[in-house]
């Protein structure tokens, strides 16, 4: 098969045009909605705990349940156009992590307060991000590692204003990453 340089140029231009069209379409199907949703949820929980104390903390399970429901709906809607078939091994790892996350505090019986419980739950979620990053997309891996570090720094170095730290650096990082994925992704 022989081509002139003009034909080759036209073919490469067509490829580039298609890539640009797909790039913008794919951006709209990344995980940014989930990150925005959970960023808002983290901020809401942190501010409830800061301003309403124990009464606000008692709302956490309900807020998280609403978040899980929202994430499932988003996943179903987005999966109609571009999807990645779920790997059974991935679900198995997630199930194991969640199982152990329930078992650990029962076994350890460490000193428990609102901050440590939130940090623990956040770390479990970030472990899921890290595993998903290993399996699917490296941005999830780095996001999981960065937020893990931020949670630990907030808990051990800035305990006095831990909730502000989580709102700004936890929720804020999730939302900013969501914007990055939506508008600046490769």
């Amino acid at each position, binding site marked *: 098969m022989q081509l002139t340089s003009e034909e080759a140029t036209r073919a*490469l231009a*067509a490829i580039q045009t*298609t*890539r640009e069209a*797909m790039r913008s*379409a794919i951006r709209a199907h990344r995980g940014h909605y989930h990150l925005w949703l959970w960023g808002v949820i983290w901020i809401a929980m942190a501010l409830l705990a800061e301003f309403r104390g124990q009464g606000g903390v008692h709302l956490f399970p309900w807020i998280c349940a609403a978040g899980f429901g929202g994430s499932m709906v988003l996943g179903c809607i987005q999966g*109609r156009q571009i*999807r*990645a078939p779920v790997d059974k091994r991935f679900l198995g790892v997630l199930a194991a992590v969640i199982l152990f996350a329930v078992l650990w505090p029962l076994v350890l019986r460490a000193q428990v307060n609102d901050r440590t419980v939130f940090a623990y739950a956040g770390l479990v979620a970030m472990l899921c991000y890290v595993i998903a990053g290993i399996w*699917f997309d490296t941005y999830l891996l780095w996001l999981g590692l960065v937020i893990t570090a931020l949670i630990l720094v907030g808990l051990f170095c800035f305990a006095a204003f831990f909730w502000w730290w989580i709102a700004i650096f936890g929720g804020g990082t999730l939302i900013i990453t969501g914007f990055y994925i939506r508008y600046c992704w490769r």
Partner: protein
Amino acid sequence: MPELDPIIHQPVRLQIMAALNHLGSREQVDFTFLKTKLGLTDGNLGAHLLTLEEAGYIAVQKTFVARKPKTFVAATAAGRRAFEGHVTALTAILKAKGSL
């Protein structure tokens, strides 16, 4: 040195492969979504997908979502290699003729 692939070089199939190659390695795209993005008709896209599937360059999965039939399409590893080789060959033509 990679060579031009006559199956991929056809303009519509070139667009299809460029689009599918841009997805993640495990991702699939809905037939209707792809048709809209590439501005093709059902028949035209279906015929070219069949050619690419017979060449082993794409995988087509038919399924049901909310009781409605859906067709998802993805590039295979062989398809990705063939497409990258085709792009390399196109680029080499321009380099050889001093256009790049």
